[in-house]
């Protein structure tokens, strides 16, 4: 089937932007650190959509975009690992995972 014919690139980009901003809003609004982390993952996924879509629609003769998306996924996983470790650490120190309570360093 011809994906290009049925779903134009613009849709892909709109999707990606939507996802990106949903992720961003998640990071900005949610108070739970884990949820914020999920927001970050959404943002990364939006990027992945971009890369794959661009690669597929515009530059199909090379595979850079796809590879990039793969690597982003790997790194997102690593990041999540580190993040979880740190969040656990926060929980130990502050007995909470709410980002609002982690504001001792300021001004």
């Amino acid at each position: 089937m011809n994906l290009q014919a049925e779903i134009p690139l613009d849709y892909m980009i709109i999707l990606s932007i939507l996802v990106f901003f949903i992720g961003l809003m998640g990071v900005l609004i949610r108070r739970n650190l884990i949820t914020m982390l999920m927001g970050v993952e959404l943002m990364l996924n939006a990027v992945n959509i971009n890369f794959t879509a661009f690669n597929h629609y515009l530059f199909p003769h090379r595979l850079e975009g796809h590879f990039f998306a793969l690597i982003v996924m790997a790194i997102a996983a690593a990041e999540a690992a580190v993040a979880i470790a740190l969040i656990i650490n926060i929980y130990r120190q502050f007995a909470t995972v709410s980002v609002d309570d982690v504001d001792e360093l300021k001004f």
Partner: protein
Amino acid sequence: MDYAYTLIILLLPLVTFLGLGLLSKRLPVALAGIIGTANLFIIAALSCATAFTYFTQEAGEAGFEAIEAYKITWLPLTDKLIIHLGILLDPLSVMMLVVITLVSAMVHLYSIGYMKGEKGYTRYFAFLSLFTFSMLGLVVATNIFQMYIFWELVGVSSYLLIGFYYQKPSAVAASKKAFIVTRFADLGFLVGILILSFNTGTFEFQTLTSLQGPVIGQASTAAFMGLSVTTWALLLIFMGGAGKSAMFPLHIWLPDAMEGPTPVSALIHAATMVVAGVYLVARLFPAYALSAPDALTVIMYVGSFTSLFAAVIACTQLDIKRVLAFSTLSQIGYMMVALGVSGYGGEAGLGYMASLFHLFTHAFFKALLFLGAGSVIHAVHSNLMTEMGGLRKSMPVTHLTFLVACLTIAGIPPLSGFFSKDEILVAAFEHNKLIFAVQWLVAGITAFYMFRLYFRIFWNQTPAYHHAPHESPVVMTVPLMFLAIASVVAGFVPFHDLVTSDNKPFETAFHWSIAGPSIAIAVIGILTAAWLYARPSLRPDAISKSLSGVYTAAYNKFYIDEIYLFITKSIIFQFISRPVAWFDRHIVDGTMNFIGNSTVAGSAAIKRMQSGHVQLYIWYFASGVLVLALLILYLN
């Protein structure tokens, strides 16, 4: 004739000053007076010799020639304007040399006695030498800037000497006042020099007064407020002269200057420095007479007013030195009037000759008066005439010499004052009748107040003295006697053959029509004084009561001091200086501090940005990115 040796006249006092000043600690005290006096006698002798050789030379067609005996370049300012230091000998300066050195020598000699035992004896003689040096430098100046240089030096030596008793607040205040008032006048002098030198391209007196020179020959047509630039320049220069010569309204420093030791008053504030203004105008006289007659008119009125004004005040003062000080003002007023009424050349220059003649005689008799007063003060330890009286017995020499001086200043023939004053009156009569009348009246007042002084000191009743007054030592009486003789004979010097406006001799005639009334009014003045003051009486009080308003005003010197005080204290200090200081601290500095403080305030204002909430950080980050992107897309 080579006059290069005249440099010694100039330098010897300087060397004395430096020597005494630097070695003051190491030198035996008594030696200072001897060294100083000896030096002065040497230069007095040299000056007289110079005068003799100069005046006995054959006067050529052009009269006595001006000779530049010595000249070095001191500071080149522009290509044309170069400050030279040199010695200019012409009748005027030679005459001044004689006057200054003679009076100075006498004062030095007198001071040995008068200042004996005072602290700072060496310092005193050092300052006297400095003064003599400066004054000599002033009179022999070859150019107006050299004159200005020494003019300032004279001012500072006067400052130092008035403030000689530096622990006495009144002396300190007086010295400060003298310096600042004359300094203010000097500002006019300086600006005058600037204008004159710019327009003429020279400082040299020879060029400035030359008949073909840039001032007279090529008078500038530029005008400012109706007067030519030259007139302005010369008026400003006269302002300097008026300051030094204590002309109204710059006279206020002179009475206060009497805080200095009496010999100093005799030398500086009677005989020499205060006539510098007269000398200055005389020096530039051709320029005044030929290219700025308006300035001369001003000089005339100022002189006349000052002489009347000061004479009236002198009648009321009780401090004998102040009486003499106001008398000095009055007499200098005479000299100024004479210059003001004079024309240039020959007979027309009678006023010029008379003025300098009066300067010459006045130097002797006024110095004599001051030294006599000093002798009295030395004996009585007071300046107030109310604490004196009946001294003619105990101080015969002083009494006699003082009497001679009083008669001289009153203008009784054949003493010198009579001749010089007579010439002035003649000149005034020919020029302006009103001025003549005023000066004639002043002659009477002069006689009156001088004899008031005389009678109060030497006659009247004898108060209870703490110590019986006795005659002063010989070192003090000898100068008195010398000056008395000089006062008597000075009138016979044929001035019209020597010092004239164009340096050419001319003939003068004696006018009984003028001399008669002037002798008459002098005698009236003397008799009135005798009637009032020769014996203790209530008449003076009665008169002063009946004239209460005028008397009080005159006694308070017509409140000129208060006006000055108001100007300085309330206007300069309170109204300018204080606001300036405030402005500087609060506005200018305040602005700088405000910049600093507002930076700190800005810092405090934005500290909320660093809230500690990571979500807000991300919020800033995200919006920052957006704003930046939009800005760049927009600006691109």
